[in-house]
């Protein structure tokens, strides 16, 4: 019994000495430094990539804003041309009415006269409303004055200080700071361009609505003129 009990006791584990502990701590210190340097390099690469992306965003935003302005001019031309078309169609309608008076049968025209003057179609009412809306400039000014006005605040440009707290004050962090400053400026430019796009779209919305109404009126007028012309044929 005593022999087995004594034999079964395991040997004691050797405790680490101070030298071993210091070696491990040194290894950890070296690893942490390397890790910090690695992360700094990755941050620098990431900031450089951000700068490239923001430059690309700026270029695309400038092109988009220019295209929107061109479309704005084209919409103005479309609106003017549609107004001209409606005026020409009204002239054509008057001329066709004169042709009817000259070439048509007078008896049926006399019989039809009271019905013609008393009857008023729905589309004529819509056309009158649209024409009144077009000719009154006050409503147009009210529509355009209801737009939102964006104000750019430049307070944050005046503030000084670093973007992030410094850990290791070395050249990599200096370059990272400069890159972040450039990213900030690019972002400011992108924000201004986005606001410009928003303003352009807000400007074009009532123009598109007006063009839609003009087109609807145009359809009615063309339909009426076609009906008159077909009546003249028979």
């Amino acid at each position: 019994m005593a022999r087995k009990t004594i034999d079964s006791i395991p040997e004691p584990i050797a405790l680490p000495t101070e030298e071993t502990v210091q070696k491990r701590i040194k290894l950890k210190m070296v690893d942490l430094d390397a890790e910090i340097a690695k992360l700094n390099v990755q941050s620098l690469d990431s900031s450089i990539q951000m700068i490239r992306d923001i430059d690309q965003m700026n270029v695309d935003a400038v092109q988009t804003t220019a295209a929107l302005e061109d479309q704005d001019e084209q919409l103005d031309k479309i609106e003017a041309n549609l107004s001209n078309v409606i005026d020409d169609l009204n002239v054509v309608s008057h001329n066709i009415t004169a042709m009817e008076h000259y070439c048509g049968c007078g008896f049926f025209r006399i019989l039809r006269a009271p019905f013609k003057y008393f009857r008023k179609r729905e589309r004529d009412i819509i056309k009158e409303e649209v024409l009144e809306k077009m000719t009154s400039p006050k409503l147009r000014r009210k529509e355009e004055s209801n737009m939102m006005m964006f104000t750019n605040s430049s307070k944050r440009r005046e503030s000084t200080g670093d973007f992030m707290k410094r850990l290791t004050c070395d050249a990599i962090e200096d370059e990272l700071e400069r890159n972040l400053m450039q990213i900030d400026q690019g972002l400011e430019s992108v924000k201004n361009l986005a606001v410009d796009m928003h303003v352009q779209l807000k400007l074009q919305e009532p123009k598109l609505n007006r063009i839609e109404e003009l087109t609807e009126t145009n359809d009615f007028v063309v339909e009426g003129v076609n009906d008159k012309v077909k009546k003249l044929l028979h």
Partner: protein
Amino acid sequence: MNHQPPPVSRVGWDDQKIMRTRRELDSVKAIMKENVQKIMERQGKLDDLVERAQRLEEASDVYVKCAVKIKREMSWKANSLRYGIIAVSSVSAFAGLAYSFL
């Protein structure tokens, strides 16, 4: 109203400039999202406008055809008397010429 303290890794995160840059980026994203929605609505309106323009073109073609027909018919009506006189005179001249050869 947030009584909970901020997380340890973000002590002073409201004061850093990079966080203000991130908030500005979020506002730019919101503006651009709204812009994209407006552009899509605008695309729908422009498509409707294109369809209306096509229908207007078809209607104008119909009008041109009818106008040409009316012009031709009115021309015939206006000149029918003249053409009749010319026909009768030519027929009589031809008859006289034929009789003179007999």
